[in-house]
């Protein structure tokens, strides 16, 4: 066994750490505290990060990206998240869909979309699946209800498709220049057989952004409403085949989305551990340093233990993906595990800080709020139930 990082991995990690410390962290709290959810975003940080390669980290070299391996991606996400979890997510959301472009798109589509994505520091990607009445149903469609899942309708008219419907909570919704959107192309079939994935440039006629959702955590990260009113999309923007949208998504075998959340959580945990240690060593309570209380020593131990266990799980899973080993569920399990860890560690940080009069350290509060997002993203019951099918058959009878 060898846990050492190679020079390239170490280089990216150091660069991300420096960027997070010098550029992201100084703006993090102020952005979090802007009341208007549309106004929390900061293009300057995106441009600066993009120029350092953080927006295009995962794109293959032949298309002008950095083709960083999964271990590197995990390291970078964790380091950026240490500065601000939602800024890290804004970058990695681009990697997520650049994996898909690389895996599933035609040469023509890559020319039209991947090239401008590489060249433009403000080209951010998004994907729309969720609708008001289609959440869990999209991820685990019920056998007995073929109509379950997204309802956004796409109908062919000559060389174009006409889209009607609304997507909700869509990540990078108000800032992305290109969206991947799931639509029903056969309303009588279930979503696995009756839907198609489209690439939707921001300036598509009949397509607009509605409200930007106002969240408790991850306030920098934009989640928007995508509204389609007779939106006209060329047939050439279909990803994969008509009625093959779910299959097209599945061609991207990276399972990146699962590692992404776990690696991001790791960065929050590192931040929380650092804050708790700093506070415990510098402040007094009842006449002695906070760290001199057994209760705090035990909490710090718990925080370190959970964080290091998460780090091992994240990096092992990324390493397995880099070696294309059989997926025995670790991608999802590490994501589920990260929910427990990030929420426990951020709460422990809060317990160590304690209330000061009638106030709480604002960043301690922010980490707890950011961690709440994991409940529905990384650890909800749909995710937990789904993974069982992938667990090793060799275990048990």
């Amino acid at each position, binding site marked *: 066994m060898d846990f050492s990082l190679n020079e390239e991995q170490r280089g990216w990690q150091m660069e991300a750490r420096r960027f997070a410390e010098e550029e992201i962290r100084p703006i993090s709290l102020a952005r979090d505290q802007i009341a208007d959810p549309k106004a929390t975003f900061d293009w300057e940080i995106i441009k600066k990060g993009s120029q350092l390669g953080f927006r295009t980290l995962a794109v293959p070299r032949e298309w002008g990206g950095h083709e960083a391996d999964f271990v590197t991606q995990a390291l970078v996400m964790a380091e950026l998240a240490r500065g601000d979890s939602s800024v890290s997510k804004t970058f990695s959301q681009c990697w997520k869909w650049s994996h898909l472009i690389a895996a599933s798109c035609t040469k023509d589509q890559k020319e039209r979309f991947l090239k401008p994505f590489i060249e433009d520091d403000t080209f951010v990607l998004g994907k729309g699946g969720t609708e008001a009445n289609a959440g869990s149903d999209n991820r685990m469609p019920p056998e007995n209800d073929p109509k379950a899942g997204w309802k956004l309708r796409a109908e062919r008219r000559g060389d174009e498709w006409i889209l009607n419907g609304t997507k909700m909570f869509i990540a990078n919704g108000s800032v992305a220049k290109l969206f991947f959107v799931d639509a029903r192309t056969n309303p009588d079939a279930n979503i696995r057989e009756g839907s198609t994935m489209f690439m939707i440039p921001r300036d598509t006629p009949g397509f607009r952004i509605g409200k930007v959702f106002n969240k408790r*955590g991850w306030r920098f990260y934009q989640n928007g409403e995508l509204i389609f009113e007779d939106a006209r999309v060329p047939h050439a923007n279909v990803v994969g085949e008509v009625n093959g949208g779910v299959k097209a998504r599945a061609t991207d075998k990276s399972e990146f989305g699962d590692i992404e959340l776990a690696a991001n959580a790791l960065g929050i945990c590192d931040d929380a551990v650092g804050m708790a240690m700093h506070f415990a060593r510098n402040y007094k309570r009842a006449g002695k340093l906070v760290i001199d209380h057994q209760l705090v020593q035990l909490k710090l131990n718990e925080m370190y233990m959970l964080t290091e266990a998460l780090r091992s799980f994240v990096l092992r899973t990324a390493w397995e993906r880099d070696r294309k080993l059989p997926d025995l569920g670790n991608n999802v399990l590490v994501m589920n595990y990260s929910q427990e860890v990030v*929420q426990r560690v951020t709460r422990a940080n*809060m*317990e160590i800080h304690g209330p000061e009069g009638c106030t709480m350290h604002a960043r301690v509060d922010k980490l707890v709020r950011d961690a709440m997002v994991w409940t529905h993203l990384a650890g909800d019951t749909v995710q937990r139930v789904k993974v069982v099918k992938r667990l090793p058959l060799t275990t048990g009878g």
Partner: protein
Amino acid sequence: MYNLQLTPEQIEFRDAVRDFVNREVRPAAIDPKRLEPFEKPLMTGFLDQLAQMGLRGLALPEEAGGAGADLLTSCVLLEEIAAGDVDLAMVLGETALLARAVHDAMSDGQRQRWLPKFEANDRYHLSLIARDDDAERGWSYHQAMPAAADIPGTPEVVAERDGNGWVISGLAPFVANAPVAGLFIVQARIADAPGTVTVLIGNDAQGLSIDLELPAFGGGGERARWHHGAVAAVTLNSCRVADDDVLAADAVRRMLQSGLPARRTVQTAAVNIGVARAAYEAAVDYAKMRWQGGRHIVEHQAIGMKLADVAIQLEAARGLTWKAAWVTDHPEAISGRSVNDLPWAVVARTFTAQSLHRATLEAAECFGAMGVMRDMPLQKYVHDTLVLQHAVDCDLAAPLVVAETVAGYSR
């Protein structure tokens, strides 16, 4: 004898408050226009209406115009208010608590002067500025408590003798109910002698000023407001108090030591139950309505189990809190060996805070992504239970008071 039956009067009062809260308070409290902004001004209209229903003078004796409610009744009613809005419950709970305590501590003359003012104005609340000598509780386990003055940053309110009265000066940075208080009960350290003096100061007294409430994010963004109810800093700048408005020293000792902090702690547990109950009721309604996976989500084992767990935690918390309330009013239950000798307020408060924060998160999870949206109430309930988990009477070290009791150890 063990009796969990509320009296017809208690049930009638509870139902009246519940009805008002469901009809008026809750819909206003969870209006997206109120939920989305960081700042949530106290809903003073409802505060006055609840005062008119008798909740401000809830624990005040009947002969003084109050309802004479015991702590259990207060808990039952505070839960109902908190299920609508946590801040209203905290303000009314504090005033009701102090009204009874200060009424007991006042002389007849003081009652005659101050009680009519309290009765005449629905917006006349009470506020206590006093040093809690036990503020750090468990943190000082295994060592003597330092005097409050030795704790860095502890503000000092000081009294200097002046003719037939006192001149009070100092700053109290976080004072519950200060923004709505008509009367302040102020404990001050005597300037050049050992001991303290406790005085009554009206909000119109010369030299008394109340700062603006803390913003949601203050101190250059480094501090987040972390309290419920209405809290502000109070400055006393050479406030002159006549001897008539000095509370008798033994009465003050009785007031501060005969369970005022414990009563507040039990009441806070009841408020916590109200917040978590609101989350629970929202989750049950939603789980019966939301259709995913080919059925109402309540029919999925995963969701059913969450609702069951929340219901169990709520009942366990309520059971402990009601027991703590009863024992606080009936110490003979302990001396007569019916109930174990424990600091029941701390037992109820710490269990309630920990279990109900988790329960509220579980309730929020039933809502999926909508659980974290600021135009929905779930994220607020989660935040409110988190704040309730981090108060002086409920921090990491607070339960150590229980260890001291069971081990017969005293620091």
